[in-house]
């Protein structure tokens, strides 16, 4: 009985091995494009700089 169980386990494992998912590296290198986000961050930071500049130097920006 024990032997039978071991055998069936072996068969099951073999079956699992043959049906395993193959992971293959993509042919093209993976590129993560951060440019858009970085550009947005730069703009947001510059906008804050601009706001501060106007607030701190009202004489340069008379209304």
């Amino acid at each position, binding site marked *: 009985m024990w032997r039978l169980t071991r055998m069936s386990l072996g068969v099951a494992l073999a079956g699992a091995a043959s049906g395993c998912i193959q992971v293959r590296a993509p042919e093209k290198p993976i590129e993560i494009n951060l440019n858009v986000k970085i550009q947005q961050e730069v703009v947001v930071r*510059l*906008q804050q*700089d*601009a706001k501060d500049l*106007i607030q701190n*130097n009202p004489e340069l920006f008379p209304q």
Partner: protein
Amino acid sequence: MTYRHSIRAAALAALFSFGALGAAPAVAQDAVVSAAKAAGTVGEQSDGYLGINGSVSSEVRAAVDALNIKRRAAYTELAAKRGVTVQDMAAVTGCQTLASRVSQGQIYRIGSGPWETKGAGPIALPDYCGTATR
């Protein structure tokens, strides 16, 4: 000794008078440009600088030039700090000035477009301004 003192006194006097002269026009430039903005002869441009619409007095022209020079100095400093071009820094500031420093009835200009008068609503900003909050 007296001679040296008198030189020092003269230098100090010169410094003080220069300071007084230097400080006075700064306020005046401000006021002159404000008045010209209200009169519709001077307006904000999307490039971050003040522009002149039509012909103005030499006083107004001088005040606009002086403020623009000071603005450029400020843009240059910030641009260097952030690693961007002076033009970009000026243009981003232009987004802000168009959004917050132009009152209804005052004139403004986007790019090399015509001078326009601000209405009741907000100015339609260039796309690159993104979400320039006021």
